[in-house]
């Protein structure tokens, strides 16, 4: 057990330290970094889903004034490692998915590059492709492990026997569609080569991650790659790892004679280059007694992966920790397709998986004639169901109860389809939420006392709009025992010490723990009278408690839904999320993460769907006019609160990650409320008006 930091700055609603620079437009995002005399890059993308490039005629492009060069697989510099096929850019004639880069134009202006790219003629030998996830695919296979090393399959007891003996069963299939992360700022990078190596101004969730991933691809030592990313306009996972555009920019910069190369993906290009959440097909089987207590719980997941790079969404991960049930089975199968490479998207695993589980739990409540909150309370797990470990803290029930009180749940009549107001059917729904406490190893913090009494705290961490600049400053202030004004935080650059990626809601735990360790080391080394220039470095320590406790944040999501009797239109006037996520470092930025996650969950519930046309292997609605994300009028009163939770085991701040939990369960709460409103159970996202029309 760690002694928790005494909170002084922690817990304060500090406004964002980077706010003024952002609202005045002076915070440089990747593409805006001032570099002299840049060239601009525009790619040519494959128009087949599988096959070979047989010929490229770039003469018209090359003849255009202002064109500096055309890259193809025949002239691009050779890369050093093909271990990651997503990053094996312009190295062969093979086409593995539609939209893959097959050429690119370097030019004096973005307009010239774009026009010249449209003049490049590419011929293909097309081969048959498969781009549609199918439950009956002959190619389904079990991956060795899931995304972050989780087991593919887990079994306990005799699920089939328990189902056969159960008084009540639910056996349904749920689907979630392909969804694209769509951060506001498109993926952008500026690449420059000089004698020291490669410099990238990048829009990324991890400057060091980009460095260590790309160095071997270019055959460089990591120290020869510098990545600078102080401000990032969102990522939602899609900027967690470098993608092909980074490599293409690096290749182009190699051919640019020392000039920097600017490259921003268009919104349309993001749909094939920057990753997405793969679609899932999930069968859930629940067996319970008449009292709603689960005896059996099974989730069999079939999901999309790409042929060139395995991606195994850990869809059943949330189910493994949610509810107690003696007989359990959770399996995953992948269908590898000729499609762009999927990646992390906010709460990979929990987000699609908990949609299915939490709708199934609602169905169980209906089947048992029990209140959906009561069903969840009855199945609350005293210890982590699979590992058997006790919880460092688990307050799911407290979240459900507090939410019920605030949402007005006690007045709820469970009968579906009976509340009507001026042509709208009204219902309410609930779902549980959870997300793990991750601590990534390897981050290093450096603390140095400056001459003016301030402490410079340096760590190559990222702020993707979440509030890292502010929250880490607060952590450092309390770790050093000084006010925030005396902390001079530096992040977003590989010139700063190593930091793990901003992913898995792990940032504050991983980086904050390193900063606390460094502050401790600073005191140990210099006592109370440090001299100017005194300096220490320290690494994120291991947490011995991680082996003794299961660590998760929990939450409860509530939604009110209205469905129009005539048209089937759906509105969500009210959402409430109640979370138990340890100590909240900064209520202002935390609330923004919670309600942002919930809003994205609302968007998932009602709108988001990348429409894959399997004939082309193409996501056809590849822009923000046709790929719908909730707009202002869709978002009603979204409120998030949290309960006081003391957890001395997770980290010295007592905090749990909060960037992702807000999306988990939100779509299920909406689906459950839509059922309560109409009596129609929608098991396939998104929930659109046509589902309610007869």
């Amino acid at each position, binding site marked *: 057990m760690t002694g928790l930091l005494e909170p002084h700055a922690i817990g304060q609603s500090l406004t964002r330290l980077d706010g003024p620079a952002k609202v005045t437009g002076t915070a440089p995002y990747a593409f805006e970094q001032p570099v002299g005399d840049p060239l601009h890059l525009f790619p040519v993308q494959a128009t087949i889903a599988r096959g070979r490039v047989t010929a490229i005629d770039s003469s018209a492009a090359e003849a255009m004034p202002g064109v500096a060069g055309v890259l193809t697989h025949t002239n691009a510099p050779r890369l050093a490692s093909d271990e990651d096929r997503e990053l094996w850019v312009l190295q062969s004639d093979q086409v593995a998915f539609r939209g893959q880069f097959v050429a690119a134009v370097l030019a004096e202006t973005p307009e010239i590059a774009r026009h010249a790219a449209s003049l490049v003629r590419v011929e293909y030998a097309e081969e048959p492709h498969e781009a549609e996830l199918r439950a009956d695919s002959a190619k389904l296979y079990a991956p060795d492990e899931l995304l972050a090393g989780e087991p593919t399959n887990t079994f306990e007891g005799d699920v089939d026997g328990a189902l056969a003996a159960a008084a009540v069963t639910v056996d349904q299939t749920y689907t979630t569609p392909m969804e694209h992360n769509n951060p506001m700022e498109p993926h952008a990078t500026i690449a420059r080569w000089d004698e020291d190596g490669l410099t990238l101004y990048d829009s990324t969730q991890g400057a060091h991650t980009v460095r260590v991933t790309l160095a071997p691809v270019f055959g460089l030592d990591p120290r020869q790659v510098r990545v600078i990313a102080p401000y990032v306009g969102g990522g939602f996972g899609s900027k967690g790892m470098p993608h092909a555009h980074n490599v293409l920019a690096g290749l182009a910069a190699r051919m640019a004679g020392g000039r920097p190369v600017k490259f921003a993906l268009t919104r349309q290009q993001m749909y094939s280059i920057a990753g997405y959440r793969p679609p899932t097909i999930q069968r859930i089987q629940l067996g319970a007694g008449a009292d709603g207590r689960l005896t059996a719980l099974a989730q069999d997941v079939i999901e999309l992966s790409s042929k060139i790079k395995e991606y195994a969404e850990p869809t059943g991960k949330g189910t493994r920790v949610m509810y107690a049930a003696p007989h359990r089975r959770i399996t995953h199968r992948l269908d590898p397709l000729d499609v762009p490479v999927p990646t992390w998207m906010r709460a990979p695993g929990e987000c699609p998986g908990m949609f299915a589980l939490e709708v199934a739990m609602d169905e169980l409540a209906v089947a048992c004639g029990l209140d959906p909150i009561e069903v969840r309370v009855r199945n609350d797990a005293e210890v982590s169901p699979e590992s058997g470990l006790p919880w460092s803290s688990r307050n799911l029930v407290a979240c459900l109860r507090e939410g019920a009180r605030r949402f007005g749940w006690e007045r709820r009549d469970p009968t579906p389809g009976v509340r009507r107001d001026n042509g709208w059917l009204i219902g309410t729904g609930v779902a549980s939420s959870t997300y793990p406490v991750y601590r990534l190893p390897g981050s290093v913090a450096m603390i140095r006392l400056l001459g003016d009494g301030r402490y410079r705290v340096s760590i190559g961490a990222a702020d993707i709009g979440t509030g890292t600049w502010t929250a880490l400053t607060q952590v450092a202030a309390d770790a050093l025992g000084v006010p925030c004004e005396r902390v001079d935080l530096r992040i977003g650059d590989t010139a700063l010490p190593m930091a793990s990626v901003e992913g898995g809601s792990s940032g504050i735990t991983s980086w904050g723990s390193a900063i606390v360790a460094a502050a401790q080391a600073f005191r140990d080394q210099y006592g109370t009278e440090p001299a100017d220039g005194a300096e220490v470095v320290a690494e994120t320590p291991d947490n011995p408690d991680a082996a003794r406790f299961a660590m998760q944040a929990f939450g409860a999501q509530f939604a009110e839904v209205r469905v129009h009797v*005539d*048209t089937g239109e759906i509105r969500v006037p009210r959402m409430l999320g109640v979370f138990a996520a340890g100590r909240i470092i900064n209520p202002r930025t935390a609330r923004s993460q919670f309600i942002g996650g919930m809003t994205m969950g609302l968007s998932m519930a009602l709108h988001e769907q990348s429409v894959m*046309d399997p*004939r082309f292997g193409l996501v056809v609605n590849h822009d923000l006019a046709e790929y719908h994300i909730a*707009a202002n009028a869709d978002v009603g009163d979204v409120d998030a609160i949290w309960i006081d939770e003391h957890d001395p085991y997770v980290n010295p701040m007592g905090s749990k990650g909060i960037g992702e939990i807000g999306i988990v369960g939100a779509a299920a709460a909406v689906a459950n409320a839509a059922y309560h409103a109409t009596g129609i159970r929608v098991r396939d996202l998104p929930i659109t008006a046509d589902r309610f*029309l007869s």
Partner: protein
Amino acid sequence: MIPFEYLRAEDAASAVAAVASRPTAAFLGAGTNLVDHMKLGVASPELLVDVSRLPFDEVEPLPGGGVRIGAAVRNSDLAADPILRSRYPAVSRALLAGASAQLRNLATTGGNLLQRTRCVYFQDVTTPCNKREPGSGCSAIDGYTRYHAILGASSACVATHPSDLAVALTALDATVVVLGVHGERQIPLADFYRLPGDDPHRDTVLEHGELIIAVDLPDLPFAARSTYRKVRDRASYAFALVSVAAALDVADGSVRDARVAFGGVAHKPWRATRAEEVLRGAPISDESFLQAAEAELAGARPLAGNEFKVPMARNTLVAVLRELAQEEAR
């Protein structure tokens, strides 16, 4: 996007002359649709003649009781116009149901009417599309059809017209005033848009170089009780799945006259003349409204994937007529 020339028109006649004499020239309104298409490679005009600043930027009364809407009137201004709001509220509501405030602040009346389909294949030059490239095939018919037609489509094209404004104007018998090299002509909006047939390349009957200078709305007193209802996948900022513009004239418990048009269901704003026939003289009741809707939709031929539009259009029309009849009763 290809290099292009830009010319700001001084007057209507020279704008017409400039575009008519060059097959690769195009008029430019606010560019909220055309410039997108230029970036996507869907359109590649070599000369843009900007007509957004020609002096057609007013809404004026016409002798005989109608109003004339200048082609350069911005969508926001038109929606807020007091005459429109009181005498033709369906038009104002249709505009406000379209696009976003930012787009409406820019978009012009002429450009709005001539915006092109949002069919995703039309907008992606890497897929076949008869409208964009005649003879290449229609990718939508066996593809993503959610926003596609259920009425009046052909085997060559199943696209829908996306304008909300055009649906309301069609219902209320508007006429388009155009200027060509041979002078002015007036085209009733009902005849202005084409069905795809085997030539989906052309959206309207306009000839190359013909400039829209105005839209006339005739005097139609009961249009003061008209409305527009749009059903879409988001609460705002989404194109219609189905929309209805309607005006109802009722007396003594029955319908004296009606104007109805559907949006989101066809290659053009769909004037529901069959529904109007059923409504005329019919008693005010859900049954009459349902009969009217069914008479119009009897000819619907939905595609795999947009079957829901038939009940959606039916229910929406019934709901709109019910609402208008109730309004009248108050």
